[in-house]
């Protein structure tokens, strides 16, 4: 009996083996799929822990989603060989020096083919010189600081528009609403300062009065004196391009003081899941800035439509994607399109390939100028209405009208 069972098992195993071999032999002939080659190794240092972790997680998920989507389709075809993506991600603990060391290590020791950048301008600025020194192509999802793109980096590309333009679309919206008094407050950090200067300048150029213009240290526990200054200036619209943690502190302490400007706009923070889950109902009515929404009529060959991207992403990660996620995925996709256009992994060829791109993706238009900046992206103002972010400006893309003033704390 035992022997019979053993024979039975081995018999099945033999049959299966024969089948697999037959399939392996016949498959290339039938499907004409390219041979599977070695993976393309793409390195990144991300802040998986520390201050920048909430933002960096969005980037990581965006990278993973791109790599998984590509690999599900077999990989990137280079010279007739389908090569899967292998992401090599290291945790820099939100320490920029550590990020620089890790990137050097990724290039010199781990032998990666290309690099994707960390979250944020400051971190990208810290690692870009290393990539430049080793002549490795690096694509940055969220490095919008103007200065980075004035350094003349040859091997750095970025998928976002430059930062000083970030909050500018707020100005025409405020004008359309007939408001004249605006305020700008921000933390003393690379991107926040640029976005603040940009919107402040734009407001002045448009003839609006900038009644309060303040900078404060990131991570401040007590923003009481800042709120006093804002209250005294009484802006009708306040722009605050600060990160998620600082946005939560500012919002919380405004609530303690029972104060809220008629319009309060953070930048991308308004849409970050970590912000929305922590702010809860307090986020209602807040304005924010985004480069992307699943409702926009964008599409590409890899992800399908913007709505498809959103649905597949949410199914995979359990939360609705923000523009940070998409920017990260598109950074990978930009590299992919560069490689496909070049037909090789040679850095110079891929760089030329990326510079020649001018096409639509789920993130909007993608076309890089000589600095490596994507000049195709449009910026939108969103507002949290009934718990959901909706585009409220510019008018031609708006899904709803901006609601203001934001209901006060006692009216909720």
């Amino acid at each position, binding site marked *: 009996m035992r022997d019979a069972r053993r024979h039975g098992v081995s018999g099945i195993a033999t049959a299966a083996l024969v089948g697999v071999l037959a399939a392996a032999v016949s498959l290339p002939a039938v499907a004409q799929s390219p041979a599977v080659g070695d993976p393309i190794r793409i390195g990144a240092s991300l802040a998986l822990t520390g201050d920048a972790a909430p933002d960096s997680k969005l980037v990581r998920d965006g990278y993973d989603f791109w790599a998984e989507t590509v690999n599900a389709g077999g990989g990137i075809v280079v010279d007739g060989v389908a090569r899967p993506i292998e992401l090599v991600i290291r945790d820099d603990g939100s320490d920029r020096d550590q990020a620089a060391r890790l990137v050097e290590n990724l290039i010199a020791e781990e032998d990666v083919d290309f690099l994707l950048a960390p979250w944020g301008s400051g971190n990208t600025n810290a690692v870009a010189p290393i990539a430049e020194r080793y002549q490795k192509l690096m694509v940055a999802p969220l490095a919008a600081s103007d200065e980075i793109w004035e350094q003349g980096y040859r091997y750095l590309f970025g998928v976002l528009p430059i930062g000083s333009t970030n909050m500018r679309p707020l100005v025409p919206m405020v004008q359309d609403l007939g408001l004249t008094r605006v305020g700008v407050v921000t933390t003393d950090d690379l991107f926040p300062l640029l976005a603040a200067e940009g919107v402040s300048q734009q407001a002045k150029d448009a003839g609006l009065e900038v009644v309060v213009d303040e900078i404060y*240290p990131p991570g401040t526990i007590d923003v009481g*004196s800042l709120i*006093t200054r804002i209250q005294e200036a009484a802006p009708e619209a306040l722009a605050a391009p600060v990160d998620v943690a600082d946005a939560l502190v500012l919002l919380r302490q405004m609530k303690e003081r029972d104060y809220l400007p008629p319009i309060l706009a953070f930048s991308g923070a308004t849409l970050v899941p970590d912000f929305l889950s922590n702010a809860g109902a307090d986020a209602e009515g807040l304005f924010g800035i985004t480069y992307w929404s699943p409702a926009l009529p964008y599409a590409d060959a890899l992800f399908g439509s913007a709505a498809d991207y959103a649905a597949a992403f949410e199914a995979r990660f359990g939360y609705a994607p923000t523009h940070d996620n998409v920017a990260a995925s598109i950074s990978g996709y930009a590299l992919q399109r560069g490689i496909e256009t070049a037909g090789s992994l040679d850095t110079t060829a891929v760089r030329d390939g990326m510079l020649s791109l001018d096409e639509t993706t789920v993130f909007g238009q993608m076309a890089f100028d000589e600095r490596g900046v994507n000049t195709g992206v449009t910026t939108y103002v969103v507002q949290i209405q009934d718990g959901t972010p909706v585009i409220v400006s510019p008018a031609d893309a708006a899904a709803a009208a901006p609601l203001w003033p934001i209901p006060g704390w006692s009216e909720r």
Partner: protein
Amino acid sequence: MSQAIVNGILTGGLYAAFGIGLSLIYGVTRVISAVHGAFIVIGAYLAQSAWMAFGLDPFLMVPVLLVIGFGLGYGVQRLFIDKVMRRRVVMTITLTFGLDLIAVTGILLVFGADLRTISVPYASVGFDVLGARIPLVRLGIFAVAVILALGLELILRRTQIGTTIRAVSQNRTAAELLGIDTGHAFGMAHGLAAAVACGAGALLALIQPLQPFMGLSVLLIAFAVVVLAGFGSIAPVLISGMILGLTENLAGLYIGTEYQRLAIFVAYLAVASILPAGLFGRRFYAH
């Protein structure tokens, strides 16, 4: 102006609560404890977890945290710091800094890196007094911080263990000759210090989003408070906390918000270089 003064005093109470334990530990054991910020952050995370799991108000969590903090502080003192206390100061700093790294990594493993906040239903409740807004939450934080400070003072002045701690801090050798278990006394001192730190953590969780690495900035504030007060006494620590809170808020209002944190450390440096014993002179618990 009145708003800045109210803010400064209310926040200063919390800053004092950060500093009190550090001051006690140094006053009694002569150890500069870099792990103190971690006790505060642990308290904050536990308060946030209790809030998430049971909806327990952070103010009600304070007594629980006092007990937990006491156990942690006593354990850290007896298990680790005791071993190096008579060594050079660099040894104790290295040890406590190492413990801090372990604590932060532990927090990260247990709680993850996501931001965590507590949003109590009375967050927007407050009173208007003389043109200044006094948020109920801030008033509560201030009151609990002061109660913690006064409670610590009472324990040190009026109880047997307080007397023992003061005796040990005054003259360790003499205390040992009298048969006092100095290791236990040091453990009790560190336990009391960590208890207040853990309790203060619940207060911090009410105003700041929690991140595993936030301990360092809290520790810096605690150091500034203690340097201003002079190591080793409690009432000056309370006053120093408020002076720093006021400095921060008035600088923010009149000089500019970008200088408010700088103002704290300028005050710290000024006092440390001009009055190295602190604003209130050198006065230890024993005196």
